[in-house]
Structure formats: structure tokens, C-alpha cells
């Protein structure tokens, strides 16, 4: 089962077991909750902005190995990025996990390229993108931290 090992690579399992930036920010500038109604996975993203730059980012939630590893790796790759850079990275990431990227593009994705194996498992794409969809909701909803609870969680459906 070469395909399974492509998806469940060591680096992914390691992130799933010990996710980075797995904590709540006490006073986030922005915050959003994500939910995958298909499997019940949940994800909360916390952001601290410096102007248009992501100064700090963290997450919490419950989910499968793919969704935890994806969220963990996402937080690592986004610190110091601008909103626009983050959105471009999401677009590339989405293309990668849905199998629409060229290999040279994957090379530019750094550590995130480890998740390319997900593209062979269409039922798992939403696991990999839950954190990213939630991030996008957080980025688009300024000052969410002050109005938490007012909005329904973003869903992958």
C-alpha cells in the first residue's frame, strides 16, 4: 500500500501526535471556529496581527491525523506572512491536495508538500483543508475576537 504511506508519512504522524502551536491565544485579534459535519472534526484558529502581517497563530480542536497535522503545519508556515501571502499559499495548498498542482509548484510549498499524498484520497481532502478554511474565515472577519459566539462555525460543506 504505497499510497497509504504517501499520505501517512512520518512527518505527518509526528505533527499529528505533537502538534505545534496547539494552544489558545489569550487575546487574539481574530478568531474563527471550523467544523466538518461529515466527521465531527472541529478546529479553532487564533490570530495575532501586526498590521497586515500574521505575528502569531495557534489552533485547538479535535480531529483525525490529517486534520491535526495539516493545522499544525499550517501554523508553522504562516508566521510572518502577509494576508495576501497566506491566501496564495492556501490556493496552492488546495490545488496540491486536490491534485491540480504541477510538481514544480509543490517544490515551493516547503514542508506543506508532505500533505500532497492526500490527493490520492478524495474523501480526505476536507480533513486537510479544514484548518485553512477556518483561517480564511478568521482573516476575513476582523476583530472577531471581540464578537466571539455571534457567528456559526465555518463548515467544510
Amino acid at each position: 500500500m504505497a499510497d497509504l504511506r504517501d499520505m501517512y508519512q512520518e512527518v505527518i504522524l509526528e505533527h499529528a501526535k505533537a502538534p505545534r502551536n496547539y494552544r489558545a491565544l489569550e487575546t487574539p485579534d481574530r478568531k474563527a471556529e471550523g467544523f466538518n459535519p461529515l466527521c465531527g472534526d472541529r478546529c479553532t484558529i487564533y490570530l495575532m496581527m501586526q498590521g497586515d502581517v500574521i505575528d502569531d497563530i495557534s489552533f485547538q480542536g479535535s480531529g483525525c491525523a490529517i486534520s491535526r497535522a495539516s493545522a499544525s503545519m499550517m501554523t508553522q508556515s504562516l508566521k510572518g506572512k502577509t494576508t495576501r501571502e497566506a491566501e496564495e499559499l492556501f490556493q496552492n495548498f488546495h490545488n496540491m491536495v486536490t491534485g491540480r498542482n504541477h510538481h514544480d509548484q509543490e517544490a515551493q510549498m516547503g514542508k506543506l508538500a508532505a500533505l500532497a499524498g492526500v490527493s490520492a484520497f478524495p474523501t480526505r481532502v476536507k480533513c486537510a483543508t479544514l484548518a485553512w478554511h477556518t483561517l480564511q474565515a478568521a482573516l476575513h472577519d476582523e476583530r472577531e475576537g471581540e464578537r466571539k459566539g455571534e457567528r456559526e462555525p465555518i463548515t467544510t460543506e
Partner: protein
Amino acid sequence: MSTQTLSVHQPGAAIDAVDFNVEKVRADFPVLRERIYGRPLIYLDNAATSQKPDAVIEAITHYYRHDNANIHRGVHLLSQRATESYETAREKVRSFLHAADAREIVFVRGATEGINLIAQTYGRTHVGAGDEVLITAMEHHSNIVPWQILCEEKGAFLRVAPINDRGELLLDEMKALLGPRTKLVAIAQVSNALGTINPIKQIVRMAHEKNVPVLVDGAQATPHLSVDVQDLDCDFYVFSGHKIYGPTGIGVLYGKAALLEAMPPYQGGGDMISSVTFEKTIYNKVPHKFEAGTPHIAGVIGLGAAIDYLEKLGINAIGAHEQQLLEYATERVRAIPGVRLIGTARHKAGALSFVMDSIHPHDIGTILDQEGIAVRTGHHCAQPVMDRFGIPATVRASFGLYNTKDEIDSLVQGIEKVKEILG
């Protein structure tokens, strides 16, 4: 022991199980010859939907090839043949449920529509502001949401009878919840997420002592247990054709004739009327009053063929075979270190739910799929059950008449593989 569990524990049933030739039965299901990633299909998702035998596929094809016409109205021969096939299937369902009269059998899209029909007709007539509908903590969303819609509209309250850590209903608590404002009890005979068999006969007696009618969701019971609605004395009973090896999109609502006759119609249209003028419409008799529009004729005929198929094998023999599988699977899966069973009721049918230490069900499902093993992972449309056990999801292996012990051995090997890859 409650009456409805007898069907799988009767002395005679054990003898039937010896006679049950599973290899012969498997040949009746063409999909079982499919290969998944080059491996034989091991289909353990029967609680979601069952596979279809040739007899059902051929009955549907035969109808479309030879008898296709609308029912209850044409003078021509094809319409007569279609009508006869349709009404013959109704009689088969009556016999399958041991109902007193075929007029008590209403065809609907599935168990879900059956429950919604009762909520929107009987419910809207009898449930008012401050009244209560009583369900249990192990219901499928389809036996929760229709009552929430009704309660919201009427200003009524939904009450929920609790379950214990094994996933068994707490009958004393349920009895205490049956009050002067309770207008209806709605309960699953078998839980889809936990496999628990509820003591329906006892619950019906309890409710009837307070003059409260009972709707039974039989979607997960009809594939495994012999059902006798007169013995249960339930007022309404619903099930889905596709879970008993019949087609999707067809199901049954049983209701006691006097209740159905007193209920207002569900939907208006053709076939549900006896005469229409712009001043006044007179509704048709039951069950036709609840079957507006051209029904799913092919589905009804396919359902009739599925019932014939089940009765040919013997529902007790099927139940005994599946009970052996469930007990074997329970024993083997429970013995795997790091596995925790969810739902360990003393009386169970059909389904084995479990979770694994620090491995999410979704990852388990993907790895089992690569082995050709189809299981369900997720909340099984029973999120309150997941909340009760403090988990987001489970893996559920559910058994049908064509499953074998060898397939369960493969499932156990698959779980070992999961641990090897993710452990």
C-alpha cells in the same frame, strides 16, 4: 428478556443457523463479486444500506420491461398488472410486520419520511403549547429533528429519556418522564450507532398505561428481527426498504387503522382523493389518503421482492446467523489492545461501534478501505449519542446476512494494520 429479542434466541433459531448456507446466499448478491483496490469487497456497512440480491434487481427490471404503467386508474391491462403488483407488495409488507390489515400499510420514501408524516399529521393535531414529546438519548437524527420542528412550531417540549454507560435505556427514568403532558413517545427498536435492542413491548405497555401512543423506528430492527406490530402493540412503526435488501427511496409507515383514519392528510394531490370540486374535496380512504401522487411503484415492487427473499431464507435464521457474527466480532475486536467498544448493551443486534486510543475513526476507515473493508466512520447521524460517550465519532462495523466469520477475521487484521501504520 423482551419479546422482540426472542426471535434471535429461540432454540429453533439456532438449528436454522446451522442450516444457513452463507456461501450459497452470497452468490445471490452480484456486488459482492466487486474487487476494491484489487481485493475482495468486505462490506460491513449494512446499517447504512444493504446490498441487493438478484431477485430484487430482477423484480424492478421486470416491472420496467414488462408491466410499467400508472396504478389505480387505467382500464388497460398494463395498469391492471402494475396495480396488482403494487397492492400485492402491500399485502407482503402487512404479513412481514404481522399487521392486522393491509389498509394499515402506507408507502413512504423511507423511515425518515414516515416519522415526518406522523409529526406533521398526528403530531400537529395532538401536540399543543406546553405539551411534550418523549424520545430517547440513542435516537438517530431522523427521530429527533422532526419532533424539534413540531415542538418549535407548537411551543411544546422535547423530553429525552437517558441511557447508561452500556448504551441501555434507563426505563425507570423513562417512566418518570411520562407525564400528563406527554402526547407521544418516539423510540428506535434498535439503535443505529450502538446496536442496542430496546424492550419495545414493555415501553409500549408503560406508555399505554398513561394513554400515550408510541411510534417505533424500526429502520435498524427489520433487517435482523422478526417484527410483530400487533404483539408489540405499538401505534406506529416505520422502516426503510433499502436496509432490508430492497431499493432506496421506498419505506413503510404502519399505523393502527383507527389512528390513520382520524389523521389529516400529509400531502395533497392525485390518488389521495375520492372527489375534488373547487368547493370541497373528499379524501380517499386509508392508506391511499397518505399516498398523494404517483408513488415509487418500482420501489414498492422491489421491496416486495426483498421481503420474499428474506422470508425464503427465514428471518429467524438470518437473525441467528447475524447474532453469531456480532458475538464473534465483539469477542475478537474487544480483545485488541487499545480498542474500546461503544455500546455494550446486553441485548444487541447488527452493529459493533468502537474507538481506538489516540487514533481517529476517520484514519481507521481510510486504512480499512485500502484493505477492501467498508465500514462507517463518523457520528452515524446520532451526534447526541457521541456527546453522551464524550467522543466525536466511532468506527462502526455492521453485519448483514451475507457476512462471514472470515470477513471478521479480515477486519481484525485490518485493525492490526491500522495500529502498525498509525500506532
